[in-house]
């Protein structure tokens, strides 16, 4: 079965090409059918592969020659490992549902078919990235993923904010990509190959064809460079700014980006290339710290946002922080596990949010929502499940994975990270339920008639919600003590452990749960029972913190002043130099020659005796020089 893995990315690609050929006027039904079927086929195949891998373990990569460079050859191909088998399944599963959901959400849009083209391309790129057997191919699909996010975020191109967000997404991630670019190029220079296997061996042996740096420093350098790439894609601080803005895109896209495709790529890369990072403790420390900071930082911002999607978006950033932190403390299994569970409940949350937004005519501000539980019960339930999973309340998926991460942080001795994680968990629980309460409970605060017309949308949108919420409930059990950590054993492919694994500490689980419940409780008091007045707090003692959080710690502004403006100014200055100095000198020469020419012209004054005089002077100079030269001046 494994040798047919290439089919999985092929399906969406074929779908994409089909839609492309059909053109933008194609029937909505046909478009959806093609796409969903392709994704579904992919899902089925990946399930088969999953079982195959479960049975027979990983397989050697299948490669074919791509380009010859002198003696070396660059190759493309695919491979299947437990990790990417898992990823394939998750991605295809979520993609299928998102594609289905979009039918309802995008219904009637002029560029409906184009949207599906982009989505298919997006899925194809992500799958291609996942099954790549070498870093070059990873980078190629890595960039394609970025492209698709650019296209989809900027899907409503006529909205300036959308265009800006798309550009921002592409450029910020590209800054990270360049890090990755340098990283893999250096790896090639040092090891002469892009293949994972070859690279890992070289890093094992620490023998590099590079002389300007010691092996250990080289490993750290490369690891950090590659991690910068991951930071860009997985929106780690300080490259996180693009992700919330990416909310400008249609909600299904957000679901896809946040759950399965875009942001998962970063974490996946670090996980896939873990041996490289493992070889450098310093790099791991950096990763851990970055992850921790991101987790808490995003959580703090999430507390005060009013756009329902933005809150969820910041929760994504924070959860990604968790995963990265986990990798930083080499809790490999925990991280990948969280990657999976998070995919489910985050997709769920987004689609639920999308359903809400869809129901009340694309208003996203929770301050103008409320009491929607009566109108959208199903959405309400599913959102609640997602929220509980996110906050890490047992037995929901989030609980198990998050617990593992905290455990890893604690056991690895990074108490600070552990504490950060706990605080973040508290905030998470708080803000997600803040959203829940403000959206579904209390009185509706928008226009009346909107509320009247609000209703649960069709089955295409509800079915995905249901399926996802089921996953959000059960997925966690895969790696619970109850199932004897089946997931771990699977990920390790029966081989020796990657990273570190610890036995579950029940007291820790309890603590985490308590913290989460505390968060929920607080938000209940503030937004349901109103026994604490948020405004009072916001404008009272906590005002500075409130402002800080509300304005996302002014990171965007900082970047604008510190980076964007200066660069543009340099550009202007250089342009000025180019025009007036570089080209100026050229023109100076030209003008100079011409003026000289005029001089010669007007020295021609028509007086024959002047001519004679000039001739004489020339003659005398020549003769004088000559006489001086031959020393004949007797």
């Amino acid at each position: 079965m494994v040798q047919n893995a290439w089919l999985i990315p092929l399906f969406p690609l074929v779908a994409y090409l089909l839609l492309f050929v059909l053109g933008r006027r194609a029937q909505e039904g046909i478009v959806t059918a093609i796409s969903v079927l392709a994704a579904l086929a992919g899902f089925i195949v990946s399930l088969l592969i999953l079982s195959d891998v479960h049975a027979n373990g990983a397989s050697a990569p299948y490669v074919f020659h791509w380009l010859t460079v002198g003696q070396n050859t660059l190759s493309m191909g695919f491979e299947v490992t437990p990790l990417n088998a898992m990823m394939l399944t998750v991605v295809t599963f979520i993609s299928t549902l998102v594609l289905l959901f979009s039918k309802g959400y995008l219904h009637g849009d002029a560029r409906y078919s184009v949207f599906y083209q982009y989505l298919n391309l997006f899925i194809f790129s992500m799958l291609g990235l996942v099954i790549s057997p070498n870093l070059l191919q990873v980078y190629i699909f890595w960039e394609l993923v970025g492209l698709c996010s650019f296209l989809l975020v900027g899907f409503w191109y006529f909205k300036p904010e959308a265009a800006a967000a798309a550009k921002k997404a592409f450029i910020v991630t590209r800054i990270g990509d360049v890090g990755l670019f340098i990283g893999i190029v250096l790896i090639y220079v040092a090891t002469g190959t892009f293949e994972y296997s070859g690279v890992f061996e070289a890093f094992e042996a620490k023998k590099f064809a590079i002389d300007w740096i010691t092996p250990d420093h080289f490993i750290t350098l490369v690891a950090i460079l590659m991690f910068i790439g991951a930071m860009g894609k997985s929106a780690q601080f300080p490259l996180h700014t693009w992700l919330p803005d990416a909310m400008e895109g249609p909600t299904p896209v957000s679901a896809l980006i946040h759950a399965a495709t875009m942001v998962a790529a970063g974490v996946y890369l670090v996980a896939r290339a873990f041996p490289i990072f493992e070889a450098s403790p310093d790099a791991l420390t950096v990763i851990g710290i970055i992850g921790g900071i991101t987790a808490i930082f995003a959580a703090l911002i999430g507390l005060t946002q009013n756009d329902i999607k933005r809150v969820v978006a910041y929760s994504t950033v924070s959860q990604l922080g968790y995963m990265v932190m986990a990798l930083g403390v080499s809790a490999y299994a925990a991280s990948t596990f969280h990657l999976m569970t998070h995919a489910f409940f985050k997709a769920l949350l987004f689609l639920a949010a999308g359903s809400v937004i869809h129901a009340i005519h694309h208003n996203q501000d929770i301050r103008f929502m409320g009491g929607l539980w009566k109108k959208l019960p199903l959405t309400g339930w599913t959102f609640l499940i997602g929220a509980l999973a996110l906050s890490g309340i047992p037995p929901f998926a989030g609980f198990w994975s998050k617990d593992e991460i905290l455990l890893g942080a604690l056991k690895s001795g990074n108490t600070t990270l552990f504490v950060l994680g706990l605080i973040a968990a508290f905030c998470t629980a708080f803000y997600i339920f803040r959203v829940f309460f403000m959206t579904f409970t209390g009185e509706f605060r928008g226009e009346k008639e909107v509320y009247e017309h609000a209703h649960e949308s069709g089955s295409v949108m509800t079915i995905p919600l249901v399926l996802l919420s089921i996953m959000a409930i059960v997925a966690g059990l895969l790696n619970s003590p109850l199932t004897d950590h089946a997931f771990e054993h699977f990920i390790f492919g029966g081989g020796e452990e990657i990273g570190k694994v610890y036995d579950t500490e029940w007291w820790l689980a309890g603590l985490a749960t308590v913290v989460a419940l505390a968060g929920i409780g607080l938000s209940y008091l503030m937004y349901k029972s109103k026994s604490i007045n948020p405004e009072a707090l916001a404008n009272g003692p906590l005002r500075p913190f409130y402002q800080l959080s509300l304005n996302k710690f002014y990171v965007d502004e900082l970047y604008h002043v510190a980076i964007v403006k200066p660069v543009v100014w340099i550009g202007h200055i250089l342009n000025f130099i180019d025009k007036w100095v570089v080209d100026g000198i050229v023109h100076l020469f030209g003008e100079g020659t011409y003026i000289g020419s005029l001089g010669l012209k007007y020295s021609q004054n028509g007086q024959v005796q002047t001519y004679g005089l000039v001739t004489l002077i020339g003659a005398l100079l020549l003769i004088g020089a000559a006489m001086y030269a031959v020393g004949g001046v007797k």
Partner: protein
Amino acid sequence: MMGNLLTLIVFLPLLGALILGFVPRSNDSQPKAVAMIATLLPLLFAGILYANFDSGQTGMQFTESHDWIHIAHAFQDKSLVIGYSLGVDGLSMPFLLLTAVVTFLGVLATKHMHRAKEFYIWYLILVTGLYGCFLSLDLFLFFLFLEMTLVPMYFLIGIWGGDRKGQVATKFLIYRGLASVGILVAFVALAYKAAMVTGVMTMDMIAITDAFAKAPADVITSSFKQGIFLVLFLAILIEEAFFPFHTWLPDTHEQAPTSISMVVGGVLMKIGAYVLFRIGVGILPDAVQYFATLIAVIGVINIVYAALVAMVQRDWRRLLAFSAISHMGVVLLGVAAMNQAGLQGGVFMTISSGLLSGLLFFLIGAIKERTGTTIIGALGGLSKPMPILAGFLLVAALGSLGLPGMSGFISEILAFMGAFKAFPVLSAVGTLGIILAAVYLLWAMQRTTYGPTTAQLEGLPDARAVEYVPMVVLVALIILIGVYPSILGDLVNHTISSYVTRIGG
């Protein structure tokens, strides 16, 4: 039948020009037809050559050579024999194909204009010059064709150019005239030194290359090589429009008509790079290595400087000119590395930049034709009235900023794979260009096609049927190279490795 295919390729356009000379001036459609045939046939022949080309071998193929001029006593009592000799090898084949494609599409891209007959006459003469440059195996012949491009360009800009045409045409003329001085000095000096080794005076590239390859150090001193290389390199900097000798390029692109911009950016500009590979790397490899750091530094300066300047341009055509300069900077970086990957990347980048410039200038020309402007600020929301053109513009921009799956990426990564081996730090600085490219290209592209559509841009016509040809062909090639680079790599691989083995790199 292969016998004199190259001659046909070179001189068919000239023949076309001659025929046009007898077409009545009033007529307007005939000239275009003639020009199309006169550029299409060479394209076909080039295709035939490509089909029969044996990429497995290093040497020249399809060669034809006849003695042309005998100059007595040129070297001691020997006479210099200048040959009319043409040939193709792995290095020149890509350039040949590039020329064939771009020049043909250039004709297609030419809109109805006044004095059409003269336009095509000059255009065809220019095309002959271009083909000659890439196909001639004799340095004299090469120089002759190089000079031959000057006159037509002067008229093409001077008659059909923009508001500053006269000034810019002269600028172009003098700039490149001076560049060719350096080239000629270097060429003849090389020929004489080679003659001292072999005792036979010739300007045949191959002979000179071999002579230098096996020359004892006391006959051809390294200081001589370095001196000559510096002269040549200076000329290349001008030919190739590298900082600080680049100012003719933005002006030219700004003023020249669309099809000429395509040819300049697509082919004419690449002659310098070809010389750098063929003569610089081919004949004076150790000199190149000696100055590697200098070359790399200049390359990086160009990458970053041009990118930063491009960022603040108001006119699409100037922006594209600077982005081309920035891309060619990568070529210098790759060459400086003097290893397989670097050089191959250099060639890739040259070709890819040629194709992309061709495409971009065509698109901008098409937009100008409709909107009447190329000022980025004056455009906006074109996706609505002309989705097809906007889509192609998007593709072109992405290709140009090095998106994988298109020719730009593979060129960049190959060049950097080479460069990082030799100059880690410089290359790291050079990667800034990758980010900046994204910044200015996306900005310009979005500013043009995204956002709300202004009133006067509403309802403009989208791409015409004939316009699909250039766009589709170029995009197809760009993506083909990007997805399956071997199609280009296998051609150049052997020639390049023969160079690399010579320097033991």
